[in-house]
């Protein structure tokens, strides 16, 4: 199942991965090969089969509505590449 150059670029954009021109074709070939391989699943009739999202069958557990402050804001901010006024600073949000 060959995927197109445009699809590769679209997916890369969705995934926020900038792709140098030189990588597009190589990636297109590799992705096509992998998708070709996984298309073997089409051989299986899965009508009526319940999908498995989790290997375990149970309901999600709950936590009580109790506040437990983390208490170390500095440690949370310390890894930030850029920060200002105790906020995470990011470049301007421009359209392209």
């Amino acid at each position, binding site marked *: 199942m060959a995927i197109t150059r445009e699809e590769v670029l679209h997916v890369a954009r969705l995934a*926020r991965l900038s792709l140098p021109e030189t990588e597009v074709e190589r990636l297109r070939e590799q992705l096509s090969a992998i998708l070709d391989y996984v298309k073997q699943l089409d051989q299986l009739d899965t009508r009526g089969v319940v999908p498995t999202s989790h290997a*375990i069958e149970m309901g999600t557990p709950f936590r009580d509505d109790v506040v437990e402050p983390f208490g170390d804001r500095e440690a949370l901010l310390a890894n930030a590449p850029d920060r200002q006024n105790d906020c995470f600073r990011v*470049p301007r949000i421009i359209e392209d």
Partner: protein
Amino acid sequence: MANVPVHEWTLLEAARRVREKEISSRELTGALLARIEALDPKVHAYITVLPEAAAADAAACDEEQAKGALRGPFHGVPIGLKDIFCTRGVRTTCGSRILRDFLPPYDACVAEKVLGAGAVLLGKHNMDEFAMGSSTETSFFGPTRNPWDVSRIPGGSSGGTAAAVAAAMCFAGVGTDTGGSIRQPASLCGVVGVKPTYGRVSRYGMIAFASSLDQGGPIARTVADAASLLGVIAGYDRRDSTSLDLPVPDYLAAVERPVEGLRVGLPKEYYEGDGLSPDVRAAVEKALNALTDQGAIVVEVSLPHTSFALSTYYLVAPAEASSNLARYDGVRYGHRAEGASGLIEMMSRTRAEGFGDEVKRRIMIGTYALSAGYYDAFYGKAQKVRTLIRDDFMKAFESADVLLTPTAPTPAFRLGEKMDDPLTMYLSDIYTIPCNLAGIPGISVPCGFSTEGLPIGAQLLSKPFREETLFTAAGAIERALPLRRVAPLEG
């Protein structure tokens, strides 16, 4: 035992000797740090070594012990952790450039438990970037080498942990297994590796690759060591919603139990393909004989959807990964690209620079599989096939208590051999992947060597939460086949 060098002791032996004050934690830790210094330049099992912190912690253990206090069953014994487990204030990279300098402000549950049991942390083990790989070659920090033959890969993604244990650069370690990442490197490095039942070990603080498949587990040189380490890291954790609130049995006690009457299933599909090397086939046969000699019964079982497991895995895991790895956007921590003129460019270049090829490839596949119009054909389909694969196992376990299979189709391959061919690389996980899809536990136990002297492991699989059965069967194989566990590697 007197002639066995300190670093070759088992985890339990080392723990006993510290406890009985035959050796101090300082000496023990010092011996292992010296071993790392001598051997790790060849093997590169560690991303981060903590000589000062480990020595200081060992000294603290000795002081506490002098006052009569023991931290836990592994008091003062040095171990290592795969660099996927967050450690408070200790750099945690996940083998990636994007987390090269990340300092977590929290400990993973596994780290808490191991350290709480008294272990001394020697350092963080190398791994495939974000656990995506089968050879530890995708690490940003360079590949780890197999201590049995440094021209070969140690397997992956927990290759650093398996190599460090095999090279006796730690008494044991904890790795993670998403599609075989504990069992396959354990097999290739001649040590024991356990992938517990999904939900048995908390994933809190364990950096996610594919959340519905990831599970942490021990890598050690003996079955008993692995069993005792699993006993420490297993258990309910309220911070992980997929953690199961079930009591943790005495795994160590299971190791010595007889296998008389144990029904060992041989899934025929695992022995049919031509990808299985004759050396591996012969070694696994020895493991089977070891079990039948001790009274186990052989039953043939079928897992008819086995040939679809790899495809299923390579849709489910990348899809989850594409979402799990979206948080590495250069905003709050980790790498950020310089000089971007706007937000989208900053994020896109950060991720392009921060992730390696294999990670990007899987993010692309996963994004594609979830995208509008393709969800049903790919991700949705894979989830349904996952049900069929799981049902196969549940049916097989009606007639068998454990399944015996090879862990990997071949012994360790050479560095670089499969790096340019992702699909061939993926095939090295063909026997380990179905277990993760089904959420069942598995273990790899050494069962022989190839004609070239490379270790080979046998895989045992059981029903959910029957890790004890695995330890019983693996213990029987280990007793029948005494094999060298420490690689013959000189500094």
